[in-house]
């Protein structure tokens, strides 16, 4: 510790900026890791909390995914001997239409029995009571809201609130205000209670419930009742404790935490190189200091520990800063992810509180620390090997041995060969990821050699542009391969990361656009919700023929989409007239034959699944899916696999008649409307709105509007990707700044000599600029190449372990082209500071500098 204070601190103080830059990679890596996971956890936590707050005393819930089930199930559940109280629930999130209030979570319950499950906190005192329970039940416009919501919106007792329902715009009356503790604080307080039967009408749910909440009889075991009830109801319905909803939700968030992990790992990798770079140079610079310490009796071990301690402390400080930054960015990310999940999946939650999990923070800290220790290990070893006699001799420098270079190149070659082998045997997950890691490590190990080779190739060109400065810059880079390669590797990694992220974004955009062109070809989409992904409101199926009767309409396809639970994860079930759909839409077939699969599905012989479903659940043509329905478990044969990006969790397409039979659900989410050729689109749309708009919630989206919406959603989905790209570019720039700052201070004497023997200021300046640009070019070249490899792997990861979407390989040339001026510009800008300090400093001092 004494050594640290006497030896390290003065050095750090002298190179404060450099020390700060050095930690940048660690800071950002840890920050992204913490931010992403905290945001995910917060969203999940908020979701879970809402679930639990709404659940009240509920011990078990009966559900059929999102599909709901007929009312009769309630009597079966109530009749079960282990059940004490069982009550029906409809849950829906609706737009309030009140500015700044966003969604309101409406819980439809049966007040006659519900209060033995949930504490509405209504009766205790004064004004915050439900006026009259009988009135509440008798009037379907009754609404109980939370005190918070009431205060925020000024909707007090007996005030009216107009909402658009499936029966047209309807006025609701606030008949009760819940105190803001407990349940009323669920969903950020944006909670309203309605009679369950009124909710059926408002949301167009027919005679169905979303859920049954129940408590078990005193003395009965919850698990025992769960099993008994599951047996009594059949496998088609799920009987689970309320907490299990969180697990399904978690699956949806998983994609985001994975992509956050990739970025964090890259940022940490980059941080590793930055630290390695700085410490290597520090060891060179402090050679004489080390020599003196050794001469004074310090052992090799002590020197090594000193440097390891230094890198450890650097990592610790960087990680701590990263933790703080991560927690700060988590808030924004949580809001973003929350909104996104709401839009994409129609799942309502509100992440109001962002709390970091101590375990997460600890592991992030450990990760940052470990990275910096690994980065510091080699320099520390080198420091320990400093020969005290040679170090104290001025004018002598220890040069890296050629053997190390050879060993490194050999290792790289072996790794590359192994990586290639791994590609061929990549169907196994472990092998695949090993290959991924090996290929990146191989490129990184080859960076010094590649850098040298490229610089040599560039030298003539540089010399032609600027005979003196060009050659000097190239030579300076060639002279210090280790210094250069650290910076180049860090830069290349950042660029590869950007290419990977940009590439997957581009591939997704293109694939989704292509798919949207074929799959989404109706002229109009008619929905009951503001967006196509929200499924709170449903139409009655009798509306279909009415729409079809409107002049100008040629065909109407009724679609019912519901999320169900398949093997523990939520998947999308799409029920429609398959035969008619197949006539209009020609999706790319992955497995099976088009004619047969649709004909079979139309006859109800099986289902057609999306390729991502096939990949995630590892099913193929001919396999039999076990699909839960309220009527029981269905065995459905897979008749075909098609490319379909409707849902990130995968879709199952089945004929609507089959769905009606087993789900007994005749509601509709959306109508796909095709117009007669030559029909006036705008006129028909207006006609439709005139006819139906006043009677119910009725939104007509044109083909273009839907595609725009899908595009917006896709952009939103990749919104955080762009943040990650920005982080990567930032790290890249910091890497260049770091490399140059370090390089210039390392070369003060050299530059002094240059000036002493007659170098003009501009010559020195230009040399440094060219050097920076060359580092940029090297980083870009290697980064573009590494990016190509990285993109291949990241697409594979997306296919195998994330959404299962098969994306075509599209190199993001546009992003690469954008990176070129950005990185070179950044390199040039970051060279200005060091260049000026090099020409402005005292020549005499520079010459004496050691």
């Amino acid at each position, binding site marked *: 510790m004494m050594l640290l204070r006497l030896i390290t601190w003065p050095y750090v103080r002298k190179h404060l900026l450099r020390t700060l830059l050095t930690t940048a990679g660690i800071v950002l890596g840890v920050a992204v890791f913490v931010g992403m996971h905290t945001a995910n956890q917060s969203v999940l936590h908020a979701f879970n909390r809402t679930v639990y707050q709404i659940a009240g005393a509920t011990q078990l819930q009966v559900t059929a995914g999102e599909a709901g089930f007929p009312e009769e199930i309630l009597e079966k559940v109530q009749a079960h001997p282990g059940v004490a109280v069982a009550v029906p629930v409809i849950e829906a999130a609706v737009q309030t239409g009140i500015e700044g209030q966003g969604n309101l979570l409406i819980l439809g319950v049966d007040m006659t029995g519900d209060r033995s499950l949930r504490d509405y906190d209504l009766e205790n005192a004064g004004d915050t009571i439900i006026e009259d329970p009988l009135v509440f039940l008798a009037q379907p416009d009754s609404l109980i809201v939370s005190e918070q919501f009431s205060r925020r919106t000024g909707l007090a007792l007996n005030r009216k609130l107009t909402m658009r329902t499936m029966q047209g715009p309807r006025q609701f009356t606030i008949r009760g205000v819940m105190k803001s503790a407990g349940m009323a604080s669920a969903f950020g307080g944006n909670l309203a209670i309605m009679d369950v039967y009124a909710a059926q009408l408002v949301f167009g749910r027919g005679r169905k419930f979303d859920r049954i909440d129940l408590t078990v009889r005193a003395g009965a075991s919850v698990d025992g009742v769960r099993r008994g009830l599951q047996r009594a109801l059949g496998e088609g319905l799920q009987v689970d404790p309320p907490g299990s909803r969180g697990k399904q939700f978690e699956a949806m968030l998983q994609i985001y935490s994975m992509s956050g992990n990739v970025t964090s790992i890259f940022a940490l990798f980059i941080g590793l190189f930055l630290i390695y770079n700085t410490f290597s140079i520090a060891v060179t610079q402090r050679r004489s200091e080390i020599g003196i310490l050794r001469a004074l009796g310090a052992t090799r071990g002590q020197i090594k520990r000193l440097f390891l301690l230094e890198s450890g402390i650097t990592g610790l400080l960087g990680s701590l800063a990263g933790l703080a930054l991560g927690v700060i960015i988590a808030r924004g990310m949580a809001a973003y992810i929350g909104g996104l999940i709401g839009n994409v999946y129609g799942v309502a939650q509100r992440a109001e509180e962002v709390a970091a999990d101590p375990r997460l923070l600890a592991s992030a800290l450990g990760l940052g620390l470990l990275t910096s220790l690994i980065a510091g290990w080699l320099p520390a070893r080198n420091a320990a090997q400093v020969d005290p006699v040679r170090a104290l001799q001025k004018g002598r420098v220890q040069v890296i041995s050629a053997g190390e270079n050879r060993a490194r190149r050999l290792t790289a070659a072996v790794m590359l060969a192994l990586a290639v082998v791994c590609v061929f045997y990549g169907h196994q997950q472990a092998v695949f990821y090993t290959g991924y890691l090996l290929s990146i490590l191989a490129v990184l190990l080859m960076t010094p050699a590649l850098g040298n080779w490229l610089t040599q190739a560039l030298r003539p060109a540089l010399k032609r542009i600027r005979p003196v400065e060009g050659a000097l810059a190239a030579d300076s880079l060639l002279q210090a391969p280790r210094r250069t390669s650290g910076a180049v590797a860090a830069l290349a990694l950042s660029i590869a990361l950007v290419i990977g992220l940009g590439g997957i974004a581009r591939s997704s955009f293109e694939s989704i656009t292509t798919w949207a062109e074929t799959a989404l070809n109706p002229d109009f989409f008619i929905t009951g919700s503001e967006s196509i992904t929200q499924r709170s409101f449903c139409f009655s199926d009798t509306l279909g023929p009415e729409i079809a009767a409107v002049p100008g309409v040629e065909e109407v396809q009724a679609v019912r989409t519901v999320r169900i639970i398949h093997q523990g994860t939520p998947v999308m079930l799409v029920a429609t007239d398959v035969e008619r759909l197949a006539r209009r839409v020609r999706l790319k077939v992955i497995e099976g034959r088009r004619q047969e699969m649709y004909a079979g599905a139309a006859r109800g012989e099986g289902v057609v699944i999306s390729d991502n479903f096939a990949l995630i659940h590892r099913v193929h043509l001919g396999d039999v899916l076990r699909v839960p329905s309220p009527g029981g478990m269905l065995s459905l044969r897979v008749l075909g696999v098609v490319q379909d990006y409707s849902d990130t969790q995968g879709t199952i397409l089945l004929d609507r008649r089959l769905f009606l039979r087993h789900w007994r659900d005749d509601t509709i989410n959306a109508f796909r409307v095709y117009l007669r050729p030559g029909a006036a689109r705008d006129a028909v749309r207006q006609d439709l709105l005139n006819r139906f708009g006043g009677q119910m919630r009725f939104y007509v989206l044109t083909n273009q509007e839907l595609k725009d919406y899908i595009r917006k959603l896709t952009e939103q989905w990749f919104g955080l990707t762009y943040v990650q790209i920005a982080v990567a570019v930032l790290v890249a720039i910091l890497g260049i700044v770091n490399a140059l700052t370090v390089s210039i201070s390392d070369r003060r004497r050299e530059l002094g000599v240059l000036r002493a*023997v007659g170098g003009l200021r501009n010559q020195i300046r230009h040399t440094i600029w060219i050097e920076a640009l060359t580092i940029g070019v090297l980083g870009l070249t290697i980064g573009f190449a590494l990016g190509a490899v990285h993109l291949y792997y990241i697409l594979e990861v997306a296919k195998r372990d994330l959404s299962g979407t098969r994306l075509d390989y599209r190199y993001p040339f546009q992003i690469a082209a954008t990176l070129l001026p950005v990185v070179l510009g950044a390199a040039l800008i970051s060279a200005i500071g060091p260049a000026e300090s090099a020409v402005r400093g005292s020549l005499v001092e520079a010459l004496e500098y050691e």
Partner: protein
Amino acid sequence: MIQLSHVVKEFDGKRKVRALDGVSLRIAKGEMVSLVGPSGSGKSTLLNLIGTLDKPTSGEISIDGATLSGLADDDLTRVRRDKIGFIFQFFNLLPSLSCMENVSMPLHLRGWSRRQTRERARELLDLVGLGQRLDHLPDELSGGERQRVAIARALSVYPPIILADEPTGNLDTATGADILDLVRDLHQRLNATILMVTHDRAIAESCHRTITLRDGRIVGDLSRNAAS
């Protein structure tokens, strides 16, 4: 050739140090002058000022009749590169460049063509007796050889003035003598003005003129006739 009048140099630190305290001096063309004095007497400072590596706090320095005060940094650099060659105690060679490249450096900076540069560098290295070691790195040379390379670099454009800061200080006696012989030889052959800082009384006495500094003032200025 070199003229200093009332040159003062102060260094700002925690304590203001007056390294040179009103030095006035004239050195004629072709003179070979040694500069002696105890550590901290201001020898190196004086050399750095004449070599335009540093600027005086007050006073005038002129080289070849041209006054240095008021010149911009780049103009100073031009004076330096056209008129002055530097030989350092620690050679200050760039470790990763070969002898040839190190010597070529000043010529590069002047924008000479590659052919011209190569010819001159070869010529210079021949001159200092290293014609056979063109492609060696400094680390592969002995101390004396390295100093020869440094001298070759200082001579690049045959400057009229050569400044040497203890050129033998880092060498053993025999090698030092060799280097001194070389310097003397160059002095005769090139008729350069040479100003050399040294601790070695024998070396000092072998010069035409010896200037002694103490506490930033000239306390002795002794000329000898035909010391060679």
